[in-house]
């Protein structure tokens, strides 16, 4: 371990405030004159709202307003959107159904907000919510993604509840490779839905400033800039310069705080209607219904092996459950973030993947921890592991035989791997796990009447949302570009210690030599693409580039000096400079 730079032990810069109770999370903020919001949510998975009667509720003590989806639509507040366009095989665009912040006419999942009660205190808002009378006509519902296409249609725009039928890769080459296979492994796997549950529940505070006709939103957000863009340009709350989004300390996100949520839109809107700041704090039980869930894939996959255990091809067909509405980045998770990593750490010549995304009457699904990439790893690694067992091969050896060994390596699913030594990490992992001693441990365990097993999994992840070429070719709504500049944000954190990697990686002299400067505040507009703590992944790639460039300049400079002194040039690195994009 070195004393400074990458690998050095560095204390986190943000800890002091958290250790002393001085962190500032969104719920710690109170605005003068603030009201409290409570969302009344649908108890039905699928139902028509025949009538909402709010009269009694409005007269309850402390109530400031009881707001419905009809009023929201009347005020011309736009729908939430999914910002990533995916086209089906037939070229048709994904079927994005209208998603109002408060349901109007119909509810599509248990938890769909149907009314917003604003009161002086939370207890008063909850009391009043009990007096809102809603006449529902329940409709048949579907929760199982595998059966969604045959289920009752949820949105007019999406026949067979199908959002898109997408694919990646070349089916012909894959079919030919399978025809020549010595062995084919087939699996059916479910990657179950889960609830992210960061320790800090979500919070939104909307405040309207009548003097300037502008809004401020404080929210538990992993990317406030995108929130501002979406709420302004798509929801139409206010032009961007009249909407400020502030994300203070965040008590964990795990993806679930990336998205733009109905409550954020509704609190902003309600603050204008009531003329008071409106604060909503989710409770834990509510979070199960209100936060986007993760995963929920049903997959059939096959792997073709040659006689020597070499992988010849992989094909997968996945049904991805996106829930009742398309959340902000939901479409990208089972496509761009999934299929592009189906090569894992292996040199697989041919890959073909089909993904059908479907609506069901369930909580919307979006990116969660790794998002799509763990789902891909699960598919690849199960295929390899089961393949090894079927062919009676050592699973480590089968992996070793198929590892990518020469770089750069172009996979058949867009990604280009620039570097790696997968065999070295496998070897190290096997040493740490004492694989050699496993037989003895297993026998000992058996003597105690216990079963002991061992399994392998390798993993590769394309962190951040990059490279821009891949992102652009696969549908990112607002497009991306690349620039190389070090991002320095004041103090923001979300559990990933933004300041720490910077302190570590900031081998400052090297950086200075590269001629780069830290980013100004105004450069921060779209740094969100790194998803905050994933900035490490994106930034370090750029840092590497920067350092190479620095060395290049340095060498060029010393070569010039040498030349000036009549010596031989020493620009050893000048020829090795290359960009990776």
């Amino acid at each position: 371990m070195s004393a400074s730079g990458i690998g050095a032990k560095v204390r986190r810069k943000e800890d002091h405030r958290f250790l002393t109770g001085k962190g500032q999370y969104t719920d710690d903020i109170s605005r003068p004159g603030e009201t409290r919001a409570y969302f009344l949510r649908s108890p039905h998975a699928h139902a028509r709202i025949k009538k909402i009667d709010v009269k009694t509720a409005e007269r309850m003590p402390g109530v400031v307003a009881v707001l419905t989806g009809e009023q929201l639509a009347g005020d011309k507040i736009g729908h939430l959107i999914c910002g990533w366009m995916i086209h089906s095989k037939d070229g048709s665009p994904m079927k994005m159904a209208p998603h109002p912040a408060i349901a109007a006419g119909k509810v599509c999942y248990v938890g769909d907000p149907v009314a917003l009660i604003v009161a002086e205190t939370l207890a008063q808002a909850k009391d009043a919510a009990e007096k809102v009378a809603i006449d529902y006509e329940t409709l048949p519902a579907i929760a199982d993604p595998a059966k969604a296409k045959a289920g009752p249609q949820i949105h007019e725009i999406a026949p067979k509840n199908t959002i898109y039928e997408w694919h990646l890769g070349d089916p012909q080459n894959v079919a030919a490779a399978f025809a020549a296979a010595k062995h084919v492994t087939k699996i059916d796997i479910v990657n179950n839905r889960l609830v992210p549950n960061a320790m800090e529940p979500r919070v939104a505070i909307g405040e309207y400033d009548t003097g300037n006709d502008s809004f401020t939103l404080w929210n538990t957000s992993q990317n406030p800039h995108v929130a501002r863009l979406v709420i302004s340009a798509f929801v139409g709350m206010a032009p961007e310069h009249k909407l400020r989004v502030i994300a203070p300390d965040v008590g964990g996100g795990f993806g679930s705080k990336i998205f733009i949520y109905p409550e954020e839109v509704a609190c902003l809107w309600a603050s204008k209607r009531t003329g008071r700041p409106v604060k909503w704090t989710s409770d834990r039980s509510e979070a199960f219904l209100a936060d986007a869930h993760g995963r929920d894939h049903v997959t059939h996959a096959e792997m073709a092996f040659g006689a020597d255990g070499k992988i010849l091809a992989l094909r997968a067909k996945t049904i991805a459950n996106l829930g009742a509405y398309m959340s902000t980045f939901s479409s990208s998770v089972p496509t761009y973030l999934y299929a592009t990593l189906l090569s894992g750490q292996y040199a697989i010549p041919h890959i073909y993947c089909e993904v059908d995304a479907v609506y069901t009457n369930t909580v919307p699904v979006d990116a969660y921890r790794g998002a799509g990439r763990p789902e891909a790893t699960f598919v690849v690694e199960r295929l390899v592991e089961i393949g090894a067992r079927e062919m009676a091969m050592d699973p480590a050896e089968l992996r070793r035989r198929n590892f990518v060994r020469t770089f750069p390596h172009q996979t058949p699913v867009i990604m280009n791997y620039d570097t790696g030594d997968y065999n070295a990490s496998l070897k190290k992992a096997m040493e740490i796990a004492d694989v050699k001693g496993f037989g003895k441990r297993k026998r000992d365990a058996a003597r105690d009447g216990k079963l002991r097993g061992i399994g392998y999994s390798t993993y590769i992840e394309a962190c951040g949302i990059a490279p821009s070429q891949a992102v652009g070719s696969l549908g990112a709504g607002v497009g991306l570009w690349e620039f190389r500049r070090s991002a320095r944000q004041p103090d923001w954190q979300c559990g990933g210690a933004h300041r720490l990697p910077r302190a570590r990686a900031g081998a400052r002299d090297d950086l200075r030599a590269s001629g780069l400067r830290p980013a100004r505040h105004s450069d921060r507009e779209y740094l969100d693409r790194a998803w905050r703590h994933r900035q490490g992944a994106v930034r370090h790639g750029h840092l590497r580039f920067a350092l190479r460039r620095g060395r290049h300049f340095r060498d060029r400079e010393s070569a010039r000096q040498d030349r000036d002194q009549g010596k031989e040039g020493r620009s050893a690195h000048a020829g090795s400079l290359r960009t990776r994009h």
Partner: protein
Amino acid sequence: MTAVSMTVNGKAVTADVDSRTLLVQFLRENLRLTGTHVGCDTSQCGACVVHVDGKARKSCTMFAWQAEGANVTTIEGVANGATLHPMQEAFREHHGLQCGYCTPGMIMAAIDMVHRLGHELDDKTIRQELDGNLCRCTGYHNIVKAIAAGARAMK
């Protein structure tokens, strides 16, 4: 409304509150001591742990009036001015926190653990004792290390 008075971090406080006000709401909303957090509505997470008369209590699971006349210590009252409490220092040294949301509750529970069980705490004891405190970020490993070190440093 109910009148409540208690001592919080050495200061006498008194207020009129709705009788259903929880102690955690009283601390956070009335006194603006926002270091004590709320992570659940089922008494499971421990983000809200404070000391009531020297004992660790989940402040989300008692009414403010139940602390009538009590001596309450929150995370804001643990350090000695600018000098961190040894348990706080141990969390910092052993990287026992990430997002920091569970941290105040963890530290309050840990100090109570030392008061009850002494300064030599093994991993198994610490893990068992942390049954009522959830952390979503760290995986607990460094929290356990921090508590063991903090316990020794409190001697």
